[in-house]
């Protein structure tokens, strides 16, 4: 089931009289989530991710705009009639019911012609439990399970009524790092098997990049960029997106374009064909630095860390926004660790230029 958001807007009235203006939690969303895909909704805390998800679910009503599931306009439909499965951040499993009773709960609500026989319900619940691999835990109560297991139960409960759309609100944030890795693969697997259109909210860019077919990066209620993770990473439309994606993050330098050449400090570091003279931000990915004795960018060397396959060169430069530059280089590339300085060439594809005023991407001609 594809989801179409059209001019979707949600404004919360402001109750705090000291600060003027209403909260625009979601501002003019226009995009289509293709059928059967897993979409990562990504952004910093408070940017409106949960609100967007609640709008799709129907728990919040939009201030303006429309939502379509396939060709149905569901904007005015209450959540119970939308056929969505929702996994809450804290799972919201009913603590007094066993796992099986929790999974059965949505099925027992079905009325009229959709009412199921007890056997069908049990079969469906067991099938859902099997899908998330919790067959042995059916008689437990939520309090007697680990966070990861509870999370699976929550997914099973959301899937058991075969929803048209599955929505997950930061489902991994309560898990520890290792479990988070495991569980996100699990979510990916379940989504592939069921082919249910899924929207996954997270503030962890790595999480979103690793499992999503497409990511939607948003900030302050506004969509910044939509696209496959690799595309968004390689080709960010503005400084915010460039900074938000990637670990270690991009190093942002204040630079200047003079005569179609990018200068950082006084050093001409890269050609910038077709761009007029102006002050810019230059965002350089960690893998965009190539150590070279003749390299134009001269940085103060702080240290070299070996991380197995790669090495991480830690350096600093007065024009860089952050006190520390991290460059990732292949282990075999030689670096003179005895020296105080290190010189880099820059890979053009890994160096993005942004307007100083708007933060928008400036594209040099190739």
């Amino acid at each position: 089931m594809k989801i179409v958001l059209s001019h979707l807007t949600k404004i919360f009235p402001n109750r705090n009289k000291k600060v003027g203006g209403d909260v625009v939690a979601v501002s003019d969303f226009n995009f289509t989530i293709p059928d059967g895909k897993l979409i990562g909704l990504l952004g910093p805390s408070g940017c409106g991710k949960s609100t967007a998800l609640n709008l799709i679910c129907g728990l919040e009503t939009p201030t303006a705009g429309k939502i379509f599931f396939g060709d149905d306009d569901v904007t005015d439909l209450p959540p119970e009639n939308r056929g969505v499965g929702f996994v809450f951040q804290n799972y919201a499993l009913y603590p007094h019911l066993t796992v099986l009773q929790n999974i059965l709960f949505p099925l027992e609500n079905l009325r009229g012609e959709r009412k199921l026989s007890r056997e069908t319900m049990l079969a469906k619940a067991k099938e859902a439990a099997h899908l998330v691999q919790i067959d042995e835990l059916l008689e437990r109560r939520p309090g007697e399970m680990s966070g990861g297991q509870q999370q699976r139960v929550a997914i099973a409960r959301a899937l058991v009524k075969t929803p048209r759309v599955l929505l997950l609100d930061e489902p991994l944030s309560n898990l520890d790092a290792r479990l988070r890795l495991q569980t996100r693969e699990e979510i990916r697997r379940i989504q592939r098997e069921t082919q249910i259109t899924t929207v996954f909210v997270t503030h962890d860019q790595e999480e979103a990049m690793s499992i999503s077919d497409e990511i939607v990066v948003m900030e302050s209620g506004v969509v910044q960029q939509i696209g496959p993770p690799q595309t968004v990473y390689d080709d960010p439309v503005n400084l915010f997106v460039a900074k938000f994606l990637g670990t270690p993050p991009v190093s942002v330098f204040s630079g200047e374009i003079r005569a179609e050449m990018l200068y950082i400090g006084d050093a001409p570091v890269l050609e910038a064909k077709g761009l007029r003279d102006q002050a810019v931000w230059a965002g350089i990915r960690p893998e965009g630095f190539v150590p070279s004795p003749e390299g134009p960018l001269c940085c103060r060397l702080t240290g070299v860390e070996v991380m197995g396959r790669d090495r991480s060169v830690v350096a600093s430069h007065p024009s860089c926004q952050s006190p520390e530059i991290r460059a990732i280089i292949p282990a075999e590339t030689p670096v003179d660790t005895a020296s105080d300085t290190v010189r880099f060439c820059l890979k053009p594809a890994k160096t993005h230029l942004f307007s100083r005023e708007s933060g928008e991407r400036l594209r040099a001609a190739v």
Partner: protein
Amino acid sequence: MHKNKWKAWLYLLPAIVFLGFFLVYPLIDVFVYSFEEGYNSASETFFGVGLYNYRYVLREPFFLQAVVNTFILVIITVPVSTGLALLISAGLNHITPLKKLFQTIYFLPYVTNTLAVGLVFMVLFKKTAYSDGMINLLIRLFGGESVDFIDGPYWAKMMVTCLYTIWIVMPFKVLILTSALASVNPDYYKAARVDATPPWRVFTRITLPMISPMIFYLVITGFIGAFKAYSDEVALFGVNLNAANMNTIVGYVYDMLYGDSGGYPSYASAAALILFAIVLTITCINLLISRRRVR
């Protein structure tokens, strides 16, 4: 370590002495009195030891009437007041405007003096030679026959007593239940909504289990409180409850000690221990049930 133990006991000493004097000692004393036949409090003498006091009390019509009254009161007021309190607090939880105001209004009877409320009930229900009272005016308006609720037939007096008791105990229950309802995580209701749960099912399968510990707390304390009823009856019918046929077990104990027919601490003690046995049994049953049902 050893020294610490002594220190702990030392800190506990004031409480132990206090409780010992005013709680444990009287308890033992009551127990002893109840088995002493023909105890005379002036001379502190008695004839013998045995079950005579119990036999006497259990055969006395006034005591039996008091037991019947108390049981009727308990059986009617505990479920009705808890149920009503549940309805009211569920309603309070749903309204947003003026919620605080309504909560305060529902709590007011709790801070109002029992005797004052009793007086109001008297005015409402009493029928005198000169006037019928508010309630009777209403009854007559709808074509009924006026009844004297304070001095009339037994069922009318019992009804007023139950109403009065429910009125008195409800605010506390409403208070406890509204806070219990408010503390249920709203995500459960959101999840239930997404799953298209009918409202009644939300109430019985989610809300009730979530607040069941509080409900059982209210039922248990409600039973105990209702078994100890006395002042409410005095507020409505005056001190001579035996004459009004409206005595309770605690009222009977009081009468045996200080009433017109008083001066019999042995009978009073026996009656008090019978009440104790009843309350203990009921509370144990309650706890057993709640062990099973509440998680």
